């Protein structure tokens, strides 16, 4: 018997996923994989099978069975606990269905399109501040993090007067330097704060998604606060990483940047291509069969952890021609950056609007934008659950 591999983590360059994934996909798109706690489960790497598996509801998303494929400091790879109230990403139908229906009405394509003026205003203000401060500066801190963080405030309905406090707590929550105790206190404060926003009638401070959910009356206060924290957690690093990595990718591919400048009508497709190419959910999504399931000639036994690799599916030559090339003119339909099946990203159209708005505005305002350090000195977040850069020093 050959040794069973763990999930690869070492990248050969900032943009391509670890080379092993391509080899696995070609040789054995469903293969055994060893998890950090020794458990032997499965890794799925082809586009066709990733799609098929995520569309099959025999594979559960319940957190009590989930395992992370790569260990992170301080976190147990085996989640082992049931979903927190409101955390639909960790639930199956029908519990998932009930929450998803409540939320999807607040995230319709129409509503997200209508958020464009707010996004433009937020981006404009941040660009003004950057211009005033002058380069070099860290684009993550000055731009990529505040865009999603201010947008989530708009969406949830955090009043202006309380945004600084809200931001401070979410910064601690996502900071690498915060201790576990600091992070947990920040989480408690956010929960308390979100409960306040969701409170009914005159006790609440603003109108936004949480207030609308409270008025609908279907979810209880704990669920609504949980939804708030889930949206914050799911949307913060993922969007921020997508903005900073997209900028890095554009600077590294000047011919693609030129295409985008010459023809703004390709912006929407360019954003889809960046999402595909970057695949920031680089450790994939977890699923578990709750019964023995025959899948493509393999027997997945009850409780065996499965990782569906998003980067591998998004670089599958069986679906995308010349998949390792960043190409804004390619057909991007079917990319899996937002997953597939019933859990497909709820925030996807918000992200699309943010990227479609923020990236062109950034390059229009600073046409000479460039890295302020050699590319190999950009610190990559290869061990974080969302791939990205820790800092992106730029100048213009």
């Amino acid at each position: 018997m050959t040794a069973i591999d763990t999930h690869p983590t070492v990248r050969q360059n900032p943009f391509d996923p670890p080379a092993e994934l391509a080899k696995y996909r070609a040789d054995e798109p469903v293969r055994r994989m060893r998890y950090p706690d020794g458990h032997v489960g499965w890794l799925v790497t082809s586009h066709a099978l990733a799609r098929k598996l995520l569309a099959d509801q025999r594979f559960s998303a319940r957190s009590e069975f989930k395992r992370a494929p790569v260990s992170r400091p301080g976190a147990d790879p085996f989640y082992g606990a049931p979903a927190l109230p409101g955390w639909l990403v960790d639930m199956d139908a029908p519990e998932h269905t009930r929450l998803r229906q409540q939320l999807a009405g607040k995230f319709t394509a129409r509503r997200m399109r209508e958020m464009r003026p707010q996004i433009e205003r937020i981006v404009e203000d941040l660009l003004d501040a950057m211009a005033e401060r002058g380069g070099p500066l860290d684009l993550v801190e000055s731009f990529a993090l505040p865009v999603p963080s201010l947008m989530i405030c708009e969406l949830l309905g955090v009043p202006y007067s309380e945004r600084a406090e809200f931001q401070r707590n979410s910064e601690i929550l996502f900071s690498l330097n915060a201790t576990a105790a600091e992070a947990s206190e920040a989480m408690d404060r956010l929960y308390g704060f979100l409960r306040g926003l969701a409170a009914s009638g005159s006790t609440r401070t603003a109108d936004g998604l949480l207030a609308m959910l409270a008025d609908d009356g279907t979810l209880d206060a704990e669920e609504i606060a949980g939804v708030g924290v889930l949206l914050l957690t799911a949307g913060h690093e993922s969007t921020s990483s997508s903005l900073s990595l997209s900028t890095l990718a554009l600077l590294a591919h000047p011919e693609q940047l030129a295409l985008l400048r010459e023809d703004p009508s390709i912006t929407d497709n360019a954003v889809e291509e960046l999402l595909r190419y970057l695949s920031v959910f680089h450790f994939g999504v977890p699923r578990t069969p709750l019964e023995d399931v025959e899948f493509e000639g393999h027997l997945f036994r009850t409780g065996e952890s499965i990782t569906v690799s998003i980067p591998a599916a998004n670089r599958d030559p069986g679906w995308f021609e010349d998949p390792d090339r960043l190409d804004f003119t390619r057909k991007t339909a079917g990319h899996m950056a937002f997953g597939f099946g019933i859990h497909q990203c709820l925030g996807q159209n918000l992200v699309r609007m943010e990227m479609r708005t923020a990236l062109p505005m950034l390059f229009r305002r600073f046409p000479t934008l460039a890295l302020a350090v050699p590319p190999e000195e950009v610190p990559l977040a290869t061990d974080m659950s969302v791939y990205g850069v820790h800092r992106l020093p730029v100048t213009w």
Partner: protein
Amino acid sequence: MHLSIEPDACVGSGQCALAVPEIFDQDDEDGTVVLLDEQPPQDLHEAVHEAAGLCPVQAILVAAADDTAR
């Protein structure tokens, strides 16, 4: 082309409504797809096919015009 939808399967991802707003909208209450035109005009056929392929739960069913009799 004849379009139909399975509202019970829809999870309100909004991909169809973002891609082809002339044909797909979403309910404000639960985000479920709303079909605006069962017989999309010729110039939208390709876009509608693509939207059906994007749907993460295959809730959009496209039939050629001549199968609608069934």
